[in-house]
């Protein structure tokens, strides 16, 4: 008997392809923005301000998704904004993973005082509202891409540390670890050669999730005008501008929002899909 629920779920086999497809498209747009973008992202022209997207009356050819109140092309700015979003996703996501997973592994496998220190730090970190923490860090570090990346690492390493610690702890109690110990392997070797490969699928799934979160954090920071310099196009900055002129020019908000929405959704769906692929029980 075919379960009706499975039919809905089977259609989701597509999700890996759809989300991967959007991210590849975005990456291409970001890489080739200087050559394929229809306009200059900073070029202002008050004669072409608040032009609607192409299907509406009053649209100008060449401005596919309309322009903002300063006459800057929305599509061009989304493409340039994708550069910032993807750099933050890749660099901040990976660095957060490396630091958080390392601390989680050490705490979960070595136990004892390293675990006590790391767990206490996690407790303290969990008592901060993350957005406020990030904004505070940017205020201290100053705006700029590097500051944004550092802020994301500082606030989010606990996400990896918590999960990896619990997994490493569970793996550490298993027989294969005990037999490796009896066989005379050193603890560092056991941690890296025996435990890490077993925790890796979880880490990879978390990594794609973290990339989506990094994109959101960057958008939030540029929304409150604390990301990179205000001139450079970012999705968050465009959204902030769109929020103020929402009744006059909704497209300034809608298109960067759609890009952000699809990107975050794609990263998390990719993670879910990869987790299923890696999971030996489901395979």
């Amino acid at each position: 008997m075919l379960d009706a629920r499975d039919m809905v779920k089977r259609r989701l086999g597509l999700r890996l392809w759809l989300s991967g497809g959007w991210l590849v498209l975005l990456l291409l747009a970001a890489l080739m923005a200087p050559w394929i973008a229809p306009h200059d992202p900073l070029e202002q022209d008050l004669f072409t301000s608040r032009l609607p997207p192409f299907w509406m009356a009053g649209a100008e050819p060449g401005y596919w998704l309309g322009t903002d109140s300063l006459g800057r092309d929305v599509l061009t700015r989304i493409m340039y904004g994708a550069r910032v979003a993807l750099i933050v996703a890749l660099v901040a996501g990976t660095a957060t993973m490396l630091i958080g997973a390392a601390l989680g592994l050490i705490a979960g496998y070595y136990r004892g005082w390293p675990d006590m220190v790391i767990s206490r730090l996690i407790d303290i970190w969990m008592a901060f509202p993350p957005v406020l923490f990030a904004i505070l860090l940017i205020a201290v570090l100053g705006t700029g891409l590097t500051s944004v990346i550092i802020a994301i690492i500082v606030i989010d390493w606990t996400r990896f540390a918590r999960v990896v610690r619990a997994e490493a702890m569970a793996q550490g109690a298993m027989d294969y670890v005990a037999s490796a110990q009896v066989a005379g392997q050193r603890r560092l070797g056991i941690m890296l050669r025996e435990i890490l490969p077993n925790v890796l699928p979880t880490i990879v799934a978390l990594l794609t999730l973290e990339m989506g979160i990094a994109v959101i954090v960057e958008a939030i920071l540029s929304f409150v005008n604390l990301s990179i310099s205000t001139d450079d196009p970012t999705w968050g900055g465009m959204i902030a501008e769109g929020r103020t002129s929402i009744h006059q020019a909704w497209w300034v908000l809608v298109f960067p929002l759609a890009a952000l929405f699809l990107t975050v959704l794609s990263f998390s769906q990719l993670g879910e899909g990869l987790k299923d692929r890696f999971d030996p029980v489901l395979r």
Partner: protein
Amino acid sequence: MLARRILTRLLTTLVTLLGVSIVVFVVIRVVPGNPIAMMLPPGATQADIDRLNALYGFDRSILAQYFIWLGGVVQGDFGTSIQTRQPVLDLVLRRLPATLELAIMALVIAVALGGFLALTGTRLRGTATEGAIDVGNGMALSIPDFLWGLVLILLFGVLWPVFDISGRVSPSLVPEFYTRFFLFESVLRLRFDLWLDLVRHMLMPALALAIPLAAIIGQLLKQSLKETMHLDYVTLARTKGYGENHVIVREALRNAVLPTLTLIGVQFTFLIGGTVIIERLFSYEGLGNMAIDAVINRDLPLIQGIVIVFALLFTVINLIVDLLYTVLNPRLRNA
């Protein structure tokens, strides 16, 4: 044994709070740019600067500043805001009720919505409806509150403008109440016009905060319900002739709800953390919105006060959830 467990938890909570205060202090003192210089008009003399530095204690060593500040906090003195020159505690207490009302409303929406989804999914298990609920939950989960807020602004503020998307209450209706818990007090005073106005303002930000949590609740509760549905006592209830709705709500739910309760506790602190940006997005006059202003204005005493209050809220909620879990879970009661 229970008393000892509670005592240990209280102690770790205290250590966490101390840790938070140290981290905030260290981070803030690295701030370049002298906040005092921004307070004074151009052309102020060095003597003026020194006097203000002494007034706010910025001329002492960082360690001394920390202990002076901590000593004040223990006595309920959080210092004076640089921007408004009012006591930090007063400012925080004036804004805190707005944030608490928003967070609690969001929590209620999330529990109602998530519970409804879980029960519907369990009742209609194996159908396409259940599959749709699973997919919807999965998507709602991966989109954070900030994006839901923007989507709601577009849908119900612009496309079909039925809700207010800015502020806490209409300016013409700002009440002269005894407390700042407007929503709560307006009911007590039977001011339903005001109550309706408050809800019209709060519903969209609360819903934005609630959607991801509702999805998490829906997912976990449904899973626990599914596991419970196979247990013998549920089968027994069925053989007694009870209908499916009765079996799910009266028999299975009671045993399935415990993991969800713990999860709600932890997730509620995440939700409160989310109020910071959601309040900004909806220009809602709460603590989070004030916090962002304080950071932008480099109002150090105010930032410290707000962060400590948030941390206190988080740790107290975690403590309550932990203790509640100990009391509710019969297996831990005698442990």
